[in-house]
């Protein structure tokens, strides 16, 4: 038996007539990096929202770390160890970058100093420590993405769900973010990552789930999945995912 840290069973979410998530059953093993791909509007973000408690599911259940957590409030899940980021960045605009980090609330009884130190480390790693005392409203799009990632790491979560962490991020930085994800993963953190950048998917994901029209249509190694005709048709189009060659 595999050690599932996160498992959904027939998870369903409807918006009026639209079924954004249609009986999605998916399990994530402890310690893996799971990629989620699928066309725009296929229900990936909705899945995140339902799993993390932002939407009440219309059916199905969510299990996290051996416990049923269906319908838990987001903050409770977050403190329990299930962190997530948002596709559309959501910095606390009127607070400084550091305060953004320190606002995070955990149950682990860390002292203020420990929290400050940890925040400093993360900011340094993400290379936004030089603007730590600037208001977040003045950050560029990419910087906001980094802050988004940094904040969730403050939770020291067991599972981190990242919604398009690389979108709009400069390639140089992107590869550093991936390194860091690998690093954290080596230390035992599980990741679920939505990403449209196939280069990222390929380097990052141990396995990939494919969504289409609200359903979970395929799962497997990135290589296998990306050769799948249905996936190519629905999602990848003419691009060959392996096409890494730079045309210069």
């Amino acid at each position: 038996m595999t050690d599932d840290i996160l498992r959904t069973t027939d998870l369903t979410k409807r918006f009026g007539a639209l079924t954004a998530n249609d009986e999605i059953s998916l399990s994530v093993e402890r310690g893996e990096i799971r990629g989620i791909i699928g066309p725009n509007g296929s229900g990936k973000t909705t899945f995140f929202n339902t799993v993390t408690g932002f939407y009440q599911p219309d059916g199905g259940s969510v299990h996290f770390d051996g416990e049923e957590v269906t319908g838990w409030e987001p903050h409770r899940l977050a403190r329990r160890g299930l962190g997530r980021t948002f596709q559309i960045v959501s910095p606390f605009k009127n607070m400084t970058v550091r305060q953004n980090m320190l606002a995070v609330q955990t149950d682990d009884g860390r002292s203020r100093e420990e929290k400050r130190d940890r925040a400093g480390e993360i900011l340094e790693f993400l290379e936004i420590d030089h603007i730590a005392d600037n208001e977040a409203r003045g950050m560029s799009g990419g910087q906001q993405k980094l802050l988004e990632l940094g904040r969730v790491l403050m939770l020291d979560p067991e599972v981190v769900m990242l919604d398009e962490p690389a979108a709009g991020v400069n390639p140089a930085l992107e590869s550093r973010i991936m390194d860091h994800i690998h690093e954290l993963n080596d230390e035992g953190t599980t990741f679920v990552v939505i990403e449209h950048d196939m280069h990222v998917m390929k380097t990052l994901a141990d396995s990939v789930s494919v969504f289409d029209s609200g359903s979970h249509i395929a799962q497997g190694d990135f290589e296998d999945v990306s050769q799948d005709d249905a996936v190519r048709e629905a999602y990848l189009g003419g691009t060959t995912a392996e096409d890494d060659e730079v045309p210069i």
Partner: protein
Amino acid sequence: MSGGDGSSDVPTLSAIGVEAGYDRHQVLHGITFESRDGVTCIFGPNGSGKSTFLKTLNGIVPVWDGTITYGDVDLTEAKPEDIVTHGIATLPQGGGIFGSLSVEENLNVGAFTVDDADAIVERKAEVLEVFPALEDKLGQKARDLSGGQQMMVSLGRAMMTGADTFLLDEPSAGLAPRLVDDAFGLIERLVDRGAQVVLIEQNVRAALRLADYVYILAEGEVQFHGPPEDLSEEDELMELYLGL
């Protein structure tokens, strides 16, 4: 590659020593830039000032120092709404569609500065030809479309202006791979029609396939400019700023 034979009569959009920023916080430290025929790409790390620079070109961010000209016209102090009438269209970062307006209305808003009714009809037909997927959605509210379709709407809307120069800020961000292809395909089409495109992209690999000229911005300064071929000699730059 297309278009770049230097014979196009599209005016050159150029910036000389542009300085700008927000409140008292300076972002751009003297940018000198010129749009070329075909696609002029701007790359650079996050927060390097790419979007800010684009916003000085389209008038959203006021220029502190330096000048911006379009052919013979001085646009340094011009307002966004006037800049459009000179033939410069923008696709802002994120697309910026009007969600509560229908798709058709979005296209019509794009043609707001166009008085010629026939031209509007013609261009709308052209947009639908490029994006047949929009045909069925004309009456729908734009916000009900998927992310990729929304990007088509904003590209189509930019085309409706009938502009000669297009400023595109990360048109492929957040799009599924096959839609990325579509977006880049559209850029090629614009160029084929003789337009100049200024393109900001983080999807450097894909963008380089189109680029006729490349600028690399970092910390509000131009670190490199030249044709893409010259980039290959700049290993350090590539590594540092483009992750290649």
